Structures are given as C-alpha cells and as structure tokens.
C-alpha cells in the first residue's frame, strides 16, 4: 500500500482504546514472503485455504466450495475495514448445502500488510463452520460481509496468534431463524482491533459474538460488538473474557440495540475481566439501547483479580504459584471458548490459551 494512511486518532471515542500508531510502518514494510505454516493447521479434514501476506497460495490449499477472487466486504466507511480492498475469498452456499467438515483458513503475515476481503452468502438452511488462524508478524486487515438466509447456520472460530496487529471487521445480517456465532481468541503477542456488527433482520434469529482476549507486556486488544435486534423473537449472546497482565490493556464494548418491533428479544451480555497485575487495564463497557417494551436483557460487567483464597488453596496442595495462576486463568477464559462446536477446534483453542498462559 502506498501513500499516507488516514487513520482515526485516539481522540475519537470509538478508537480511544486502540493504538494504531504502528500501522503506518507495518503498512509500508516489505514482507519477508515465506513462513512455516505446518503447525498452524488444526486438521479439520475439510476445505483449507492459505493466505500469505494477503495473497492466496493455491498449491497449499484445497478450497472446496470457497472461491478466491473479488469479494464484497461491506465494510462501508469503517476506517480500517475500507482499507482491506476487494480481493480475497468468497463462500456461497446454496439452499441446504454445506461442507461436511469445518473450513479452515490460515493467514500468515511476514512483516508487512496482509489485506483480505471476504464474503459469505448462505441460502436457506445452508450450514457451515469455519476456523481462521492469524499468525506471523505484520498487519492482518480483514473485512468481511456475512449474509445468512432463512435458518442458515454459521459458526466461526478465529484465533489471533501472531505479533503485529490484527484488525478484523465483520458485518453480518441474519434472516429469520438464522444463527451466527463468532468466537475469537486473541492469544498472540500483538495487538488487535475487532469490530463485529450483527443484525438480526428476521424473526427468531440467533446471534452470538464473544471471545477471550489475553494481553501482557504493552499489548492492547480492543473489541467492539454490536448486536442489533431488528425483528421479534431474536436471541443474542455476548460473552467476553479479558485477561491483562503487566501494562497491557483490554477493552470490550458490547452493545445491544433492540428496535421498536423486536418484541420478545432475549439478549445477554457477560463481560468479565481479570487483572493479573495492578498496572494493567481492562475496560468492560456493556451498552443497551432498547425501543421495544417486552424484552429480556441481562448484562453484567465485572473486573477483578485472581481469588486469593483459591490461590492459597492450590498452594496448600503443592501447586506452584505460576501453575496455580495459569489454572485459574484458564478456568476464567474457558467459558468464552466452551461454545465452539468443533471439538478439535475447541481443543486447539484451549491449547493456545494454555500455551499463552505458560502452563
């Protein structure tokens, strides 16, 4: 990418928790181009795609129903999403169709920018699950548009493992009875900015956005999710777990919007933060905007430290402090990964969280 990057500043309320100051350098850096990818595959036995520095690698891919090329990412004027361009991948599934196994996409950045646009369109009753891995050092910038037809079901699990910066922008619309679940694990050494906007357009749809954000050193994770209920009888869940050590920062802003016609909405938000050091920062901000009167909205936000009584109990049984901390921290984040449907994917994500915790 050439020229000057036009990025929002931290004075902009929506961007105050993100530190974008490293992006111009990453955007202008020349990527190394090669990277080992062997251990990045979970091995779900389904279609697989590899992108290195935003470029598709057909020789190491088996795309199945996914097509590579132009994609309408629908990021609008999102300051980072709009930079992702119009090239990437597209998954279109016709009525009742769906790959038998989880689709696996690995993105590796080798020091520079990695822009990918993506689009998922699923017709009535189509089903798919997808796992994405972001690794390496660089700037992953993905914008994606998701359109689910009636009763279509999509589960996305993604993990950010590398250094550098990952900005992942999703915009989704769900028809009646459709279901979408996006779970994100940030367990790398870099920063992230997650923007997820799900709109339940049809009645009785289900939307879920959540994840586990792990940060230490000077890392920053900034997650922003908006669950918009536009029709009646929808259900949404937002379950985020943040862990911050050293001088790191995690910020989660989770918003529920209930339109006037969206009666019988059932929305839950659970935002919990765990500070592993007093010098770390966690900001958990649940927001509600409700225009219907017959709705059930539950939200909770708590930030705390590890339970001292539990730490001593573990120590009294012989568990050393580092291991005790890791055990309790793992238990704290496990909730956020528990709903990943594919067992191999869930196990891999838990192992990543454990590796991050050093257990």
């Amino acid at each position, binding site marked *: 990418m050439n020229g000057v990057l036009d990025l929002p500043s931290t004075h902009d309320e929506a961007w105050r928790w993100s530190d974008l100051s490293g992006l111009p350098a990453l955007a202008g850096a020349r990527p190394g181009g090669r990277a080992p990818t062997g251990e990045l595959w979970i091995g779900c036995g389904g279609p697989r795609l590899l992108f290195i520095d935003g470029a598709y690698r057909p020789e190491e891919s088996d795309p199945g129903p996914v097509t590579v090329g132009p994609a309408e990412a629908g990021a609008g004027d999102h300051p980072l999403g709009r930079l992702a361009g119009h090239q990437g991948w597209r998954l279109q599934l016709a009525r009742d169709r769906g790959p038998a196994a989880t689709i696996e996409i690995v993105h590796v950045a080798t020091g520079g920018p990695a822009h990918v646009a993506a689009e998922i369109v699923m017709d009535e009753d189509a089903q798919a699950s997808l796992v994405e891995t972001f690794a390496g050092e660089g700037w992953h910038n993905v914008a994606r548009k998701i359109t689910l037809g009636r009763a279509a079901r999509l589960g996305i699990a993604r993990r950010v493992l590398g250094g550098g910066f990952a900005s992942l922008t999703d915009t989704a619309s769900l028809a009646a009875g459709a279901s979408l679940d996006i779970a994100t694990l940030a367990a790398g050494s870099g920063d992230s900015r997650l923007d997820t906007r799900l709109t339940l357009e049809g009645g009785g749809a289900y939307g879920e956005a959540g994840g586990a954000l792990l940060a230490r050193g000077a890392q920053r994770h900034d997650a922003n999710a908006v669950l918009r209920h536009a029709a009646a009888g929808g259900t949404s869940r937002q379950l985020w777990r943040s862990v911050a050590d050293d001088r790191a920062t995690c910020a989660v802003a989770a918003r529920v919007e209930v339109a006037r016609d969206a009666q019988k909405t059932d929305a839950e938000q659970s935002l919990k933060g765990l500070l592993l050091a007093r010098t770390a920062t966690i900001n958990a901000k649940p927001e509600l905007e409700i225009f219907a009167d017959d709705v059930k909205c539950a939200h909770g936000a708590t930030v705390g430290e590890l339970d001292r009584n*539990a730490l001593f109990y573990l120590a009294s049984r012989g568990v050393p402090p580092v291991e005790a901390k890791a055990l309790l921290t793992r238990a704290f984040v496990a909730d956020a990964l528990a709903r990943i449907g594919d067992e191999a994917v869930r196990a891999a994500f838990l192992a990543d969280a454990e590796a991050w915790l050093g257990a």
Partner: protein
Amino acid sequence: MTMLNIENLSAEVGGKTILNGLSLSINAGEIHAIMGPNGAGKSTLAYTLGGRPGYEVTGGSVRFLGEDLLAKEPHERAAAGLFLGFQYPVEIPGVSNVQFLRSALNAQRVARGQAELSGGDFLRLARAQADALGLAQDMLKRPVNVGFSGGEKKRNEMVQMGIIDPRLAILDETDSGLDIDALRVVGHGINTIMRKPDRAVLLITHYQRLLDYVKPDFVHVLAGGRIVRSGGAELALELEREGYGALAA
C-alpha cells in the same frame, strides 16, 4: 523422631497478635488434638503453619522434618509433606477436582524428584480414594467444591489427603458439618491414611465425637494464642464435661 517442633511461635493477622508464644512438639506416629474456645487461634495456627499470606510470623521457629518450615513457600511446605485440611474448603469454579488434584500431586512429585503419574494411574488412585471415603465418583469431575454440601466438602478434603498421602496432616474442624455416618467414614479414613509409624496428625476439633474414632495420643488446649494445658485422651473428656471455664482457675 520429632516431626514438627514449634517453639515460642507468635503471629499476627491484620496487625493483631493472635499466636502468642505457642510451643508444641509432635513425633512421628502420634496423633495430637487441639481444642479451645472460638477465636482462640486454632485456625490461625493451621494457616500460619501452611504459610497463608497475611499471617505474619513475628517470633519463634518451626522445624518440620528437620527443616525450617517458615522459610518455605506454601507449595514447598506441601511438597515437604505438610497437608492442611481446611475448616472452610475453597470453591474453585471452572477447575475440576481431577485436574486440581492431578496438578497438585504431580507438582509435589516433581518437587521431590519423582516421575509424574500418568492420567490413567492418577484416575485409578483418585477413584480408589473416593470410594474409600464414600465420595460419589462423579464429584471428581465436578469443579472443586462448587455446589458441594458442607459434608461433601469435608469428605473431599479427606479424598485429597488420601491422594496426596502427606507426612503430617493438620485437620481444622474436619468433623464439623459431617453427619453421624460420615463422621465414622472420615474417622476411619484418617486412621487408614495417617495412623502409621512415619505419619502424624494434628486434629483441631471442638468435640469428643471425632476423637471416639480417631483416638488421640495427646490433647492440648489452645487459649489466648498459646497451649495452656496438655494431657492424654482423657483431657478431651474432661473438657467436654467441664468446659473451658474451669481452665482459667
């Protein structure tokens, strides 16, 4: 052989002196009981020996198996063979009993230079101990103490003791919250696991009934932060008859 030797131990909690020159010596093969009024400092003694943060030793010394106990971190005290049965066992959501105990046992084994137990060997050991103490097998898979009844928590403490197989167990009111049958099972468990020539037990209790099952060699009265009287098993019966008031004389 002297297993535990406490000399003139003083300790504060929250800036307040609770233990005030306490001395007590326990030999291998012995079972000691400590009784005493509420607030006397019995749990404080247990926590201080366990190394709980906030329990500050201000004087005296403690030697355990020939080593300076107070110089060790809490997990090192456990690895050295000390076990603390909690008056109020702690709930740990999200961590299963099995995971907790396997981490604990293997950490202790590693600290002692032994090989870790495999998953299968550990499960066999855990199941056998749960059976011996009448704890339902499915409770091993549940998060540590979460949703356990008072009595189940105490049984779970004893299952842990059986798995860890310590040299010295300090059991803080393990009998409280147990029904009559559970008391018998737990008493039997303590005898089976700990009544051996190279083991020792310090039982903290308010009642004679546990001592009917686990017969103490010595009984001590803790009051005002020190041991004010010691005797044989008959002292517990005397206390039960006459209360602590008579001791003031």
